[in-house]
């Protein structure tokens, strides 16, 4: 074991892992985070806390993560390179680890252009791949990025994102290979709606043997309504939503669409459980955390292993 | 102000605008003597600075009479002229001047009647606007 991370232990046990996420509030009420976490805590092995998601200011990922840690849960700290230079990142990593956070996700982050502070200076001192390498060197070499020794190094289990649906497609596996070379331990993918295309990507991943070196958690998002599906198809960059998803939601009554969305997500997980290389699921139930237990149980992934 | 006679400068291209003015003359269609014509080989040659200089020196209105769009003798000189006119309109707006003091017009060589009518209308419009700030300053100086 490289770390104390519960996620690492679950993955090492050979069982499928389940993670989910909680978006912190745009205010100081930490109870919101705790409530959302309580809804899902018995059905997941780790809870991502987003970091200024979509470039909107929110409560700090680390602060919210520490609150979860104090509840005895397993936060996965997200960190974007948009908002911090390497000094700030390393300082926060030391602090987060000192307060019990042992799992993190390295991301570049949505451009400030999307958020509520488009006038902010984007940092992007290092990219997500170099962030992975930095965290790995902190853990395995006890070295700061600048080369100096760390006396008590942080032992982070290192995650990153992958979007199998962004362009150019032929680079998507190669870029994953770069993340693996940089030292990533696990991957949470972008929401999958085009399951066939994901399987094609996964096959290339397996062909290159990358699944042996990194644990891939397939990203699952249940559709709440036809409106949500249409919005994501047309407005969210890098999202691949095939017509059959739209058609299936359109085929049921409006008040049955949410139920259908849950059903579709469960079927998708059951299908992907058989997909070689998939080591678990990352469930992003956007403002719909209460449905996570139903999804996990429906996919036959409950109860979660005790490790 | 009632008997205000504006000074108007019209940059006319040799092939269309100027020929149209000439046609108006030979057919004895009168247009206001306020309009002073400057013949240019092509309105593409009229730069923004020429429009500005005319206004600076006291013209109350300035316009460009070019070939019809698509019929420029030099391909797209009249389109360049439009761009200059638009730019100067914007400058005048920024300065708090009436942008209507600058205009773009297009004629074919045969449009003598229309040339005269447009000259008449433009003169009336400038009369309604009154003397430009620069021409007021110039006349005070005299």
């Amino acid at each position, binding site marked *: 074991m490289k770390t104390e991370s519960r996620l690492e232990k679950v993955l090492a046990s050979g069982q499928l892992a389940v993670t989910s996420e909680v978006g912190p509030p745009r205010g100081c009420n930490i109870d919101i985070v705790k409530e959302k976490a309580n809804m899902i805590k018995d059905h997941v092995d780790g809870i991502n806390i987003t970091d200024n998601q979509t470039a909107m200011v929110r409560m700090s990922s680390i602060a919210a993560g520490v609150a979860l840690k104090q509840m005895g849960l397993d936060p996965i700290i997200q960190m974007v390179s948009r908002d911090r230079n390497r000094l700030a990142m390393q300082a926060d990593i030391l602090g987060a680890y000192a307060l019990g956070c042992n799992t993190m996700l390295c991301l570049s982050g949505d451009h400030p252009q999307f958020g509520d502070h488009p006038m902010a200076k984007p940092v992007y001192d290092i990219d997500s791949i170099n962030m992975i390498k930095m965290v790995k060197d902190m853990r395995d070499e006890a070295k700061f990025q600048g080369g100096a020794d760390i006396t008590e190094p942080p032992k982070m289990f290192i995650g990153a994102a992958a979007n199998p649906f962004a*362009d150019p497609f032929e680079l998507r596996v190669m870029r994953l290979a770069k993340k693996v070379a940089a030292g990533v331990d696990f991957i949470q993918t972008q929401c999958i709606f085009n399951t066939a295309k994901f399987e094609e990507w996964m096959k290339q991943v397996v062909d290159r043997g990358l699944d042996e070196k990194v644990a891939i958690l397939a990203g699952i998002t249940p559709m709440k309504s036809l409106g949500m599906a249409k919005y994501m198809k047309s407005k969210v960059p890098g999202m691949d939503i095939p017509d059959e998803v739209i058609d299936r939601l359109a085929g049921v009554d409006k008040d049955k669409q949410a139920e259908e969305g849950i059903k579709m997500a469960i079927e998708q997980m059951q299908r992907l459980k058989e997909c070689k290389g998939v080591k678990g699921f990352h469930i992003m139930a956007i403002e719909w955390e209460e449905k996570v237990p139903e999804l996990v149980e429906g996919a036959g992934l409950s109860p979660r292993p005790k490790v | 102000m009632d008997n205000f006679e504006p000074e108007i400068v019209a940059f006319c291209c040799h092939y269309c605008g100027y020929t149209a003015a000439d046609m108006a003359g030979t057919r004895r269609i009168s247009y206001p003597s306020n309009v002073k014509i400057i013949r240019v080989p092509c309105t593409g040659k009229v730069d923004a600075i020429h429009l500005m200089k005319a206004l600076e020196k006291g013209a109350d209105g300035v316009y460009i009479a070019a070939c019809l769009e698509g019929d420029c003798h030099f391909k797209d000189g009249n389109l360049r002229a439009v761009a200059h006119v638009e730019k100067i309109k914007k400058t005048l707006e920024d300065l708090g001047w009436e942008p209507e003091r600058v205009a773009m017009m297009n004629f074919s060589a045969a449009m003598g009647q229309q040339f005269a009518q447009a000259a008449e209308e433009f003169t009336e419009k400038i009369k309604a606007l009154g003397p430009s700030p620069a021409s007021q300053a110039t006349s005070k100086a005299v």
Partner: protein
Amino acid sequence: MITAEQKPLQEILGYIAPYEKILVVGCNECVTVCAAGGRKEVGLLSSAIRLNSAKAGKKIEVLEHTLERQCDPEYVDQLAELAGQVDAVVSLACGCGIQTVASQYPIPVFPGVNTKFMGASESQGIWAERCMGCGDCMLGITGGICPIARCSKSIMNGPCGGSVNGKCEISPDVDCAWQLIWDRLVELGLQDRYEELVAAKDWRPAGGGGPRKIIREDLASSKIITEDNA
């Protein structure tokens, strides 16, 4: 070249409002090419200032001059006589030229343009950013396309997950630099290069180490210059 755009007229007029005699100075280099601060623009701005003073009923005298180059003291020296006659200067050069003029004359020097970026002309009237002057050119490994200047996130190992149909996530009008890099590497048969990890950038040569300066001993030494001339 360095690109620039004229400032809003009202901002310039605000700067010079207290003065009665001003000098508008252009530059014959980059700002002439991008039509922001050459001889033509000096004429137009001076003319606009005069029209404004006519409207305001205020007397202002505007002198016009365009230098061969405003970022060289030798050329800026040529302003001595004109600068002695005016209360203030409006410079239409890039920030380098404006500062050179300001450093040589004890009167207020105001910017008439916003200096934008180092860019190239895409077609007439369109300039696009191509270089950020990072001081450690990596075009040799990226197929001649700069990820620092042209990727919205200056990613060294791109593309990020926001690249769609060759466009950047920030706008469908912005090309994804990493798509361009990849296409170019494929064209050159250098795809294998893609998977080499590019290390975190050292930003010191890019300005992270404080204001930058180049000293060329061979040129800076007056002795050599004299010998060459001899």
